[in-house]
């Protein structure tokens, strides 16, 4: 347990050190990132993805829930609508326009990623701040709980939580993948807080008579944000992939009127031998988007790492 946690702690500590150096870290990091092609490429993918999600209602040619090609679905012969005039990707298992579903699917996929990250972050923030700021027995209790959560491999924990709900829906899926991230964020924030407790800026604030709450929220927390932002970009990608895995294992959102890439991919695995293209499109989208977030996160990590700045 503690090796994994040590890694998270080290990351947090490192960020705290960086910030106490005094120079504007954000500005320095941004200068480096602007010239980094890997970051720019990842950021371009992410921007394109968000733009697609926002603009998809106008881009999608048809209603993604309408079975407009339903008459071309012949169940007995396992036949689905092929690509045709007006439907360049053809239809899905029940005759809905695949292109529209892929385009609109970006919205829910973005939501899964963002909400899961936000929930994971918020949970981690509460636990990590409590532990890091209060210390003592609160710290011990919170961290032991975090350790227990970390003792189950991530995806297995998500699947276990996903199975808790008798009627899974989009939100239970998001909650399941988000819960896995709570202990990681908690560790990260706690480590960062602990590292700052005896740093000069906190001592100075304390000497000036700043109240504990203000120290935590105005001084310690903002200084912990570096590794949290890095972690968030990586978590966004992981959440989208984990949601797809949940769907693959039959624990996803059964309501498929509103498309989501992960659910589309998981669903497509059932008929993958006869219609692999139903899986290829959502899979390609997920891979590109996950790659975008990962490239961004990794180059952010490098930019914020004091070691690589020499």
């Amino acid at each position, binding site marked *: 347990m503690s090796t994994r946690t040590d890694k998270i702690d080290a990351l947090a500590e490192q960020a705290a050190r960086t910030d106490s150096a005094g120079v504007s870290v954000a500005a320095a990091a941004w200068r480096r990132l602007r010239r980094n092609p890997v970051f720019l490429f990842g950021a371009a993918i992410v921007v394109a993805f968000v733009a697609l999600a926002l603009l998809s209602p106008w881009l999608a040619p048809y209603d993604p829930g309408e079975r407009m090609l339903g008459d071309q679905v012949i169940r007995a012969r396992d036949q689905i609508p092929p690509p045709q005039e007006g439907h360049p990707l053809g239809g899905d298992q029940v005759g809905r326009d695949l292109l529209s579903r892929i385009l609109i699917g970006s919205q829910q996929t973005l939501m899964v990623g963002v909400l899961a990250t936000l929930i994971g972050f918020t949970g981690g923030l509460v636990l990590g701040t409590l532990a890091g700021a209060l210390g003592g027995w609160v710290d011990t209790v919170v961290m032991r709980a975090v350790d227990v959560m970390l003792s189950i491999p991530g995806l297995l924990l998500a699947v276990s939580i996903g199975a808790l709900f008798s009627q899974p829906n989009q939100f239970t899926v998001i909650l399941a993948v988000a819960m896995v991230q709570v202990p990681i964020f908690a560790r990260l924030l706690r480590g960062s807080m602990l590292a700052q407790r005896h740093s000069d800026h906190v001592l100075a604030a304390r000497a000036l008579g700043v109240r504990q709450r203000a120290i935590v929220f105005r001084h310690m927390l903002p200084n912990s944000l570096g590794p949290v932002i890095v972690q968030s970009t990586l978590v966004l*990608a992981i959440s989208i992939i984990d949601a797809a895995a949940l769907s693959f294992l039959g624990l996803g959102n059964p309501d498929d009127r509103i498309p989501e890439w992960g659910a589309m991919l998981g669903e497509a695995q059932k008929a993958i031998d006869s219609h692999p293209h139903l899986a290829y499109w959502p899979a390609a989208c997920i891979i590109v988007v996950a790659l975008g977030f990962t490239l961004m996160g990794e180059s952010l990590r490098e930019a914020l790492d004091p070691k690589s700045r020499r």
Partner: protein
Amino acid sequence: MLRYTIRRLLQLLIVVGVLSLLLFAWLRSLPGGPVSALLGERATAETRARLTEELGLNDPIFVQYIKFVGRALSGDFGVSTGVQPGDPALDIFLQRLPATLELSILAIIIAIAIGIPLGYLAARRRGSVLDNLSVVSSLIGVAVPVFFLAFLLKQVFAVDLGWFPTAGRQEGGIDATRVTGFFVLDGILTQEWDAAWDAFVHLILPAVALASIPFSVVFRITRASVLDVVDEDYIRTAESKGLTTPVIRRRHVLRNAMLPVVTTIGLQTGALLAGAVLTETVFAFPGIGQALAIGFERRDYPVLLLLILCSAGVFVLINLLVDLSYALIDPRIRTRGGGH
């Protein structure tokens, strides 16, 4: 060192104990519940009530838990209701464990055998085509959903090209003698080479799929770690002492760079089981992962409880071993008096 080990072992026991309580409560609160699982949804209220009473499900959850622990200590974890109905959960676990171990060992060997040399080379030629290509491929390795990668491998190398079998652990026609339950090892021990080879061939595709994430992580950590080490003062010292490059690389760079890599390998080995749930399902490979996937689908509580508990136990144990080996490799940790 001994005190440290004992303390960590105690911690391990506490974690497993707390986890078993949580899992127990969790499984009891799952929709459907064991009664529905045993009787199906259409049973009459009367039969349901009788079975609920017989199974002791009317007792307070804490009493149920104590009884469960008592039975578990004597090896009785209940009977499977969905994965292999009627079989004791412990038997299912023991029967499937060698399959998953075989798969995991091969996967981690693949990840190490490619990840470490590639990471080392990439670091030595930082910025080269090889470096950039392998960094990008490692990032793609993380971005591809494991079950989709498994499917692609199966489609291309098993279905289209026919180089590998599509599913299972061994061809049905092979009459292999079972000794240990590890099919490859059994074949070697009994000198049934065809059986060993066949079992090995069945492992390759699922192991490659399973190795994708550990490979990416091991590669990146090796690369980053070597890059860190070559900048260190003691490397410059070694150079100025006039040591030859191969000696510096072997004795100073590699040895120091391997510390974080060892940790990573341990962590990734523990996490393999999560990936195995997906990979084993795609390849219909009869291991722990497949049992978990079926268990979730059919709400097989006794099997789920045992398997999740064991995988968490293994995960924590591997971490403990990594920490201990770390202390052995790195004298600084030993003298710190063992941990925190």
